[in-house]
């Protein structure tokens, strides 16, 4: 069957088997290997991407179901050489160790901040509660998302061109 969806702002059309999962469509058909494929049972959250701006576990969505929808993956986060503040936060706060859970965590963090610019620590922990960091680095992941929230708030109030410091 043929499926057409928007991936990172670009419309893509491919011939697929109906049983192809979105995670494999992204990784194998489109070569976007930034989205990780983990437990395959919708438990670990390594495969989280945004579908119409909401985080979904792409191992439990058929590529066919994504037809007509907008998918956003980790590859879209850096723009014009500029990291997304959530990515920057993961660097600043050591939010990753092995890095396997990182793309999913970053996408969920991005979606959270787009809905709630100033989340509490509890709200951040709740948002990532369906995702597993096997290095158990949750504290720094939470700090990374808090870093991004603080810097986006500062950016929003700072005048154009002004330098913002932590």
């Amino acid at each position, binding site marked *: *069957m043929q499926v057409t969806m928007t991936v990172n702002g670009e419309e893509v059309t491919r011939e697929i*088997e*109906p*049983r192809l*999962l979105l995670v*494999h469509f992204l990784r194998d058909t489109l070569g976007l290997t930034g989205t990780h494929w983990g437990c*395959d*049972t*919708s*438990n670990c*959250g390594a495969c*989280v991407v945004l579908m119409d701006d*909401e*985080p*979904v*576990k792409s191992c*439990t*969505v*058929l590529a*066919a*179901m994504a*037809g007509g929808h907008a998918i956003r993956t980790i590859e879209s986060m850096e723009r014009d050489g500029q990291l997304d503040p959530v990515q920057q936060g993961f660097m600043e706060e050591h939010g990753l160790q092995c890095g396997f859970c990182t793309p999913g965590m970053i996408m*969920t963090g991005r979606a959270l901040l787009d809905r709630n610019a100033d989340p509490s620590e509890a709200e951040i922990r*709740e*948002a990532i*509660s*369906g*995702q597993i960091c096997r290095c158990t680095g949750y504290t720094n992941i939470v700090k990374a998302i808090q870093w991004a929230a603080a810097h986006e708030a500062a950016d929003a109030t700072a005048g154009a061109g002004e330098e913002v410091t932590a």
Partner: protein
Amino acid sequence: MQVPAPFEYERATSVDHAVALLEKLGPEARILAGGHSLLPMMKLRLATPEHLVDINDLTELDYIREEGGEVRIGALTRHRDVLESEVLARHFPIFAEAERVIADPVVRNRGTVGGSLCQADPAEDLSAVFSVLKAQLVIRGSAGERTVAMDDFQAGPYETAVGDAEMLVEIRVPVRAGGGSAYEKVERRAGDWAIVAAGAALWIDGGTIADAGIGLAAVGPTTVHVTRGEEALRGQAPSEEAFAGAGDIAAEDCSPAADTRGPVDYKRHLARELTIRALRRAAAGALQQEA
């Protein structure tokens, strides 16, 4: 890699279209909503449907509204919308309490009310909630709609009253004055299925329990509706003694199986204790409504 067996994929454009597709494609067709129960089962080849009818475009089934003394919930309503619903929070706090412990936020973005009910997992939480609230379920086929009480909806584990060429379209929950409700669940880790869960509702009129609802998850082959416990509560004043009596009945009237989540006596203990806790908080909510 876990891959489902091959199937044909169809996308429904309306409820009538979905029903027509199910009728045309026969008993090996299945409805695909959020997919978070069906796709994992297909990956394990526990389910091998030949056709999937994707109903995710049917926004006509995605709603929570108050109408005619009932709250009506469309079958395609996502768990997240149930959790965040102001209408449900106002009338039935039990929904948000149950939703908060159903899977995780990312899964709740996709999973649907209708999908959870039709999966009919004995440990599923909303089935217990709808038992507590004595919901009516609307099923549509080509011949029209029929309404089934929650008690008659589950035919067994993973089996429901929905026929091959039918689909669940709406759940109706009666709104009555003086009600309070609560949900208690014990799970091994965040987002897991219940070891045991208990939901309760009380409707209090003039200091007396006019009606009660008690439902248990994960302690039998289907959701357990503790009707004998409800009967025992009716006409009594809400008290610790009355709740303990209902808790005893809940422990007696369920039939848990020993598994990796615990032995039978532990699950009966939980059934009793969680029933009492849920009743206690339901009473507090109901008395607040009455005041």
